[in-house]
């Protein structure tokens, strides 16, 4: 390797320039000394433009997710770990075991290589912890001002175990609605770092890979109907999506929704509703009502589901309203988000 690239990539002081996307030696060196070095695995090492591997029998799941979060480093994570967790979670929400990831990088001219290395190292660490490697990738560089440091698109594939059928259109009246823990942490953590909004908080992003929690859950209750990670748009949006897909309504209980006091306070201060604030390490589960207690116990047995709660139930409603009993004792709709609450949160 050193014979091909006699001068090592300067990851301390160097910056991304146009040659790093030009297809020549500089790009090859960036791939070797940055991506392959950190993501290191047998398939990537082969150096092909694709990865070839065997998959077992069963249904394959595939999902893709672009990440443009700003700022790229935030309390509890960064764009790299987020890109790994986000796609693993999208695959896992089908009840699947994630196998492999791809990663496409769009880098902006001038991005410090030190920042890129920090992101790639964090991504590699997230992959190792999750046991899901990046096996193929792509790098492009755009001129200064045409990107915002780094954008990462990851695609994941996974396999659904036999007998598992989880889909957003399977919620039925009488089902129970559960959430795996406190909501709103990710969005508040990102906001606290925004240039024009900076505030002190102990809240960190909940960014995490949920596939092992999902595995625990489907082992306990194989007939889970729906799983969804409430990312952009938060819990409220996830519930509305599931209602729409399944052609049902929901009734939830505000008092049952897990929420950290710090997040509630920050939202109060900023005029946000925590039900609409993004999460990156939570899931919503819908299962037959009589299985809810068993599912809840399974979720709580896993560290990522420690604060899980049953928050409501699925009801018949042709109009697909998500209704909520407020802690105050009244009723209201939990509606779709109008406009955009927080831009570039993931």
């Amino acid at each position, binding site marked *: 390797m050193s014979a091909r690239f006699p001068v090592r990539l300067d990851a301390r002081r160097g910056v991304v320039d146009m040659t790093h996307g030009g297809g020549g030696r500089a790009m090859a060196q960036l791939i070797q000394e940055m991506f392959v070095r950190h993501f290191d695995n047998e398939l990537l090492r082969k150096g092909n433009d694709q990865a070839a591997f065997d998959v077992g029998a069963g249904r394959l799941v595939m999902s893709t997710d672009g990440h443009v979060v700003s700022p790229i480093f935030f309390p509890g994570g960064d764009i790299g770990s987020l890109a790994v967790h986000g796609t693993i979670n999208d695959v896992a929400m089908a009840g699947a075991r994630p196998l492999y990831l791809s990663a496409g990088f769009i880098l902006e001219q001038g991005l410090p290589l030190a920042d890129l290395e920090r992101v790639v190292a964090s991504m590699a660490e997230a992959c190792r912890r999750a046991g899901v490697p990046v096996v193929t990738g792509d790098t492009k560089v755009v001129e200064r001002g045409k990107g915002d440091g780094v954008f990462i698109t990851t695609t994941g594939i996974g396999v659904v175990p036999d007998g598992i059928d989880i889909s957003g259109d399977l919620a039925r009246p009488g089902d129970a609605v559960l959430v795996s823990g406190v909501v709103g942490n990710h969005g508040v953590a990102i906001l606290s770092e925004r240039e*024009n*909004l900076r505030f002190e908080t102990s809240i960190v992003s909940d960014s995490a890979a949920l596939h092992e929690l999902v595995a625990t859950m489907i082992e306990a209750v194989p007939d889970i109907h729906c799983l969804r990670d409430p990312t952009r748009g938060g819990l409220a949006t996830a519930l509305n999506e599931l209602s729409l897909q399944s052609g049902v309504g929901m009734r939830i209980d505000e*008092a049952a929704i897990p929420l950290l*006091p710090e997040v*509630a*306070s920050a939202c*109060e201060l900023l*005029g946000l509703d925590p039900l609409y604030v993004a999460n990156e390490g939570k899931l919503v589960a819908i299962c037959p009502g009589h299985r809810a207690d068993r599912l809840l116990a399974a979720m709580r047995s896993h560290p990522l589901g420690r604060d899980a709660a049953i928050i409501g139930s699925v009801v018949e409603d042709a*109009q697909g*309203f998500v*209704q909520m009993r*407020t*802690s*105050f*004792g*009244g*009723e*209201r*709709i939990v*509606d*779709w988000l*109008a*406009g955009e609450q927080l831009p570039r949160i993931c």
Partner: protein
Amino acid sequence: MKYIDEFRNGDLARGLAARIASEVRDDRDYRLMEFCGGHTHAIFRHGVQDLMPDKVRFIHGPGCPVCVLPVARIDCAIRLAETPGVTLCSYGDMLRVPGSKRRSLIKVQAEGGDVRMVYSLRDALRIARANPERQVVFFAIGFETTTPPTALALLEAEAEGLANFSVFCNHVLTPAAIQHILESPDLREMDSVRIDGFLGPSHVSSVIGSRPYEFFAEEFQRPVVIAGFEPLDVMQATLMLIRQINEGRHEVENQYRRVVTRDGNVKATSLVAEVFELRPSFEWRGLGEVPYSALRIRERFAAFDAERRFTLDVGKGRDVKGCACPAILRGTATPRDCKLFGTVCTPDNPMGSCMVSSEGSCAAYWTYGRFRGRASEVAA
């Protein structure tokens, strides 16, 4: 949790609800106007109406600063944003408010106009300092609550000689609007809407105090209870109003004593007086021209007044045909009386200002309350 849960306690709410239910008289109803959008929002978000007896009705007032700005002034802001070399800074809600021909600042932004959403005036000042080659205009809106920060920014700009900064001033005054509602023919002659009492502004009153309401409580013989924005505040103030009405009193009472005093924030009001003066008249959406109901920038700060710097001609704007925002803002119609509500006008595609801000009646009805009553007709 300190200062959030305490004011949203369901047990206390049920206690107050029982008290209200036991004190309302059988032989009458109670029509109470909550002036502020903040109250409207709290009523809907927490489901306060569900805890009230049928005889108590809230009439939503014009206290949403986004909603009351007339189309002509939105059009001015749009023209400013389209002016080459201008960076227009605005609070977020204003970006989506439709002007004439359904243009909005967010559309101008998408077409390449330099429109920035800011959380604070300080951001606008910062943008002006960082971009001396651009004319940075702050689109100032709001009642007495948001006026002192604008005054401070103008003083700061003057002290610094920040020549590329100016303010498009649209600050309006609450007492003038309440008085105008009470004097309007709808209420006085036609008696189409009866208002028995007011839930008075909370944040506005923290600045101006409770004294300014004393005149019209006496003049129009209507009780005013200044109420906080938390749901328990709204319920307690409602009980206080019902008691005044039952006893035939019409006083200014202050439920929001943890913040509001009789004289208000004297420092803030004197700052405002230093920088602003009364406009002889100002157009409000829904209320029309209201005398002495808004502020303009004093001559001393003329250099920082966008209306003078850009010689803005605030002409006549055109409301969308069929939009009932004007009547809704006067309290003479409810969102459901509007033909556009929920059919072509939704928060995603607002036709009128009341559908934009979370404090607007239409947005609150749509977002929190449309499952009630005619839900089937307005479903998406």
